[in-house]
């Protein structure tokens, strides 16, 4: 990619402050679509002095999905460099994990990725169960899979709708919120909370499904299945949407792997990898589902914003499949295993990873035979996913930066933890 040739002006900040010097870029990703803009060299005369603008995008900005702050060095509409600054939503989740008993930590884990609380709980509980050697009843495992997949559908609906909002389409956002509302009510009716469920507990789940709830679940699945083509009419197959996203914000396989990008963004880059299938946890190995990954058969370039969005739409369909299979296979039995009253796992370590809607959530827990963890480290997928934006958005238009951040679908609660 050819940067526009300009008399360079030293950056306002010393380069050492910007991410500790320039990171090593093995390859700078070519950004399709922008190439035709770059062909037109800006007409800057010898006597006309130009200057780069340094912007503060965020923490209060509509497109930064919360309180992300991005310092952009731009040349008019072109982003020449950027540095994300995080930490505005830091809530000491890991420190709290070291200071409260295990079962009290679970409600805090909910609040990390507040759009995928069920998945967070699932993985955090798995870590504690593994550390303490607790057996989870089979029915509880199925309950966990069902609520986690419903959560994944909800999270992806939110991600796709908000992506429309980032691109200026307000209507699909609210259309998807209509179904998401139903799903939130659904999880509310089983757990008692609308967003932060605290339903998955150490050793099982809080309560068994009732028949009314299962009927409600069926209605929700049918509604989502029926509405999916509508969302695609407004976004995925729309010409303007394709123009905005195809070839924009390309994160190829090498960039994904170097930066530790996971989840839909990794799959959009053509990597056929899903923890649920390739390193299954819970009872995920008993279901049949496809892992959608980016390829050249659809519009866009492998690893661009369009394919990330496409992967999400496909994952919703696969999640519907998993929930239906789980409902069929679900055995009878208790939903709570035998958990000792005082939970004191012996000294040791566990590392548990699982597929969250945004990528791989991993919990690294060091136990020391106390009722609290010695170290409770969480790998928030958005933390690694947003870091890649420094490389991806260089040289693109400002609108493409917004499109790229939106397509990574970050949740700041998880970035800052």
């Amino acid at each position: 990619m050819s940067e526009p040739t300009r008399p360079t002006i030293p950056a306002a900040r010393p380069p050492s402050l910007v991410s500790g010097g320039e990171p090593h870029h093995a390859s700078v990703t070519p950004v399709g679509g922008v190439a035709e803009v770059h062909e037109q060299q800006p007409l800057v005369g010898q006597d006309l002095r130009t200057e780069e603008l340094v912007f503060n995008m965020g923490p209060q900005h509509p497109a930064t999905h919360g309180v992300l702050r991005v310092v952009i060095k731009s040349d008019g509409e072109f982003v020449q460099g950027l540095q994300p600054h995080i930490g505005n939503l830091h809530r000491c989740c890991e420190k709290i994990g070291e200071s409260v008993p295990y079962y009290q930590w679970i409600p805090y884990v909910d609040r990390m990725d507040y759009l995928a609380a069920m998945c967070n709980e699932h993985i955090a509980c798995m870590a504690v169960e593994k550390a303490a050697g607790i057996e989870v009843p089979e029915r509880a495992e199925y309950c966990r899979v069902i609520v986690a997949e419903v959560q994944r559908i909800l999270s992806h609906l939110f991600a796709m709708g908000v992506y429309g909002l980032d691109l200026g389409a307000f209507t699909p956002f609210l259309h998807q919120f209509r179904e998401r509302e139903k799903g939130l009510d659904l999880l509310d009716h089983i757990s008692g909370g609308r967003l932060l469920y605290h339903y998955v507990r150490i050793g099982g789940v809080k309560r068994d499904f009732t028949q009314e709830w299962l009927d409600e679940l069926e209605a929700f699945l049918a509604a989502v299945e029926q509405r999916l083509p509508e969302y695609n009419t407004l976004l995925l197959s729309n010409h303007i949407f394709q123009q905005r996203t195809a070839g924009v914000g390309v994160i190829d396989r090498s960039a994904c792997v170097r930066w530790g990008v996971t989840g839909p963004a990794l799959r959009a880059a053509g990597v056929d990898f899903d923890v649920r299938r390739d390193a299954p946890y819970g009872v995920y190995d008993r279901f049949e589902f496809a892992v959608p990954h980016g390829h050249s058969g659809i519009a866009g370039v492998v690893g661009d914003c369009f394919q990330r969005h496409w992967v999400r739409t496909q994952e919703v369909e696969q999640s519907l499949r998993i929930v239906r299979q789980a409902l069929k296979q679900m055995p009878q039995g208790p939903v709570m295993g035998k958990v000792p009253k005082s939970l004191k796992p012996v000294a040791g370590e566990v590392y548990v990873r699982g597929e969250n809607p945004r990528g791989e959530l991993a919990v690294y827990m060091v136990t020391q035979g106390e009722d609290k963890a010695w170290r409770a480290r969480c790998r928030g997928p958005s933390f690694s996913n947003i870091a890649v934006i420094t490389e991806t958005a260089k040289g693109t238009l400002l609108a493409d930066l917004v499109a790229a951040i939106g397509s990574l679908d970050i949740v700041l609660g998880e970035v800052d933890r």
Partner: protein
Amino acid sequence: MSTTPSPAGTPAPAALVDPVTERAHALLAARLPGVVQAQELGGRHPWIRVSVTGLRDALRLLRDDPSTQLECCHLISGVDWPARKPGDKAELEVVYHLVSYALPYDAAYKARRGPQAKNDPWVAIKVRVPREAPEVPSVMDLFTGADWHERETYDLLGVRFTGRGFVPRILLPEDWPGYPLRKDWETPTDYHGIPIVPPEGL
């Protein structure tokens, strides 16, 4: 050191030796003699501890060798191990969890179900540095994504990563006192005159 975490409560049977970690260990032992300091190849969390000086070589070898291809640095975590009884060494531990997307999921793991087994292919590499002068070479040039993880480890535990210039804090303000995830850290009462717990309560 004596506080080295022992494997899980139930001793790991020999059958549960982790194939990927074993492969990585064999590779390191063969190609970089003297780098591996300790290892635990079985149980639910196998790990290999390498020397601080050999860390970069070890990670580069594991990343590039076709038999391991651990190309992604999944997580970097720091663990504080202060001296809890006289004679202990006060140390900080940095754990690198590496994963591979290139190698297919090992069929051996299919049989390794159950809560006590390690059932996914990752490798944990550890280094230990003294708590007073915690200096670890940066691996940012090997794994670009390690950048933010290193910044966070510095921010919360005070591990200094060398060879990458100035490491800014990431989550906390630049002038925040101390490193909160160290076990001896105490919450300050105020920050620039702003009380952390207001006098009238939260």
